[in-house]
């Protein structure tokens, strides 16, 4: 049970842990990965031969992102996808509006899902050949 001492349990409310907020590109990347905008095994790597600084310089124009961030193209496309579906300006920049949107209370079900057509077809074929398969 939640620890409390007072008769009306009012002190039980104060030991609630707070969720980690999205504050920078690292936490933003984890958010995008968790909710399917960046697929598993899709984690943005800094391309070989590209230094972090030069990469962020290329992307500096027009963006208000601090020099320390090190987005790469996959991270940017995932960020843009999130911005698009959230109805935000699609800038590809991890800006305050995007940060606020990421910190909103939300459902834990991923936004992106993998399409399983070919697998589903195979399952269907199998289902037909095995009439005892139950569907849940």
């Amino acid at each position, binding site marked *: 049970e939640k620890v409390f001492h007072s008769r009306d349990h009012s002190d039980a409310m104060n030991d609630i842990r707070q969720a980690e907020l999205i504050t920078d590109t690292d936490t933003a990347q984890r958010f995008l990965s968790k909710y399917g905008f960046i697929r598993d095994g899709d984690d943005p790597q800094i391309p070989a031969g590209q230094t972090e600084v030069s990469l962020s310089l290329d992307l500096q124009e027009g963006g208000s992102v601090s020099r320390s961030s090190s987005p790469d193209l996959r991270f940017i496309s995932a960020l843009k996808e999130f911005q698009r579906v959230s109805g935000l300006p699609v800038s590809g920049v991890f800006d305050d509006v995007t940060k606020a949107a990421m910190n909103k209370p939300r459902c*834990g079900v991923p936004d992106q*899902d993998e399409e399983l057509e070919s697998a589903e077809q195979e399952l269907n074929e199998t289902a037909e050949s095995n009439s005892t398969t139950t569907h849940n």
Partner: protein
Amino acid sequence: HTHAAANNTEPPGRKQRHLAALLRSRRRRDASEWKGHMAFSKSLLKWRLMGEGYSSQLSIDEQKYIFRLAFRMWSEVSPLQFVEDVDSPLEDIDIRLGFGTGRHLGCSQRFDGAGREFAHAWFLGDIHFDDDEHFTVPNTGSGISLLKVAVHEIGHVLGLPHIYRSGSIMQPSYLPQDAGFEIDWMDRKSIQSLYGECKGRFSTVFDWIRKEQTAYGEVVVRFNTYFMRDGWYWLYENRNNRTRYGDPVAVQVGWHGLPSSGVDAYVHVWNRKTDAVYFFKGVQYWRYDSENDQVFTEDSDGRSYPRLISEGFPGVSGPVDTAYYDRRDAHIYFFKGSQVFRFDVRMHRLASSSPQKITEVFPAVVPGNHPLGNLDAAYFSYSHNTVFLLKGSWFWRMVSGRDRRRSASLPPNGLMPRREVEQQWFDICDVHSSSLR
């Protein structure tokens, strides 16, 4: 496990081949294009609030009340019905709900504490709520509406994905609940694209007339459309293309004195001399007191209701399939099997030509496209200013005066080709009897 299964050196069994297939074929689906999948192949689903998953902030009654309401809201717009089941073995329960914090209920996805993620759902029917969140019951202060979150997560379990449309209950981010959120037209069509539209025959359909006096003493006449099916009824809001939120309701609740199993027919005899509403059931009928919203206990001669139809309407014997009053000729049309009986209310007797075949009195405009008989309802609609004959999931609209002015060749009282009831009157859905108020 997934990777391990795929790299298994032994000849893969059927399960391994599937997992391998799953890996090879994964392609990210654009979030906004996916319409979801039909998660259940049956229409009656059992749910349970897990004993080990009670909220530490809301009473058990509050939690169950909200979940019952959340399931009812989906049932009101889809062919699905839900019933709480606290007895069956767990494996028979289709949807399991529970609260937890951090690592919870054997779930693979931790909760993150107050803020951000408040709940999640798994396609095999598990819904978890983060007990660190401050969930609230309807209409009580700030916090996250448990009802809204529950409706969202149940949508996932039924197979709906996130939907990025303002107004959709399936938006991923939580929007503080406006006064009374409801499942809107588009979300209804989304769930119906998975489980189909609500169909079914009706016992009767009618427009009920009410007279109101304005502040200036004028009498204003209003009507409401009602659909009745056995012991339940819906008020249908024509301007909104939907039933009243919260319907259906038990007939006994709204129509005092009528039989709890519902009625066969409704007739409103309304002319210069008479304004009388009648309900028919089996061999009996009642007159209804619209002013005081209850059946009359006796008629003007002191005879108590219900009365025999054959006494009140000589020449007509119950049970009737349905009936309606036609103000043009001041006759009640009683339908029974393939026949129709025309009763003259002024002379208080059956028309000499009665009974006649329905096909004779109401000919088909398109040969062969006719209900023939055994009607469910004959409904004069003030919205459409014509009569509809309903049978099963179909209806036939009677040729109206306006139709005949446009095309004089149309036969009087002719029946236009049939159309589906749910294409004219939308989302009239049953709910499980356990969730009737």
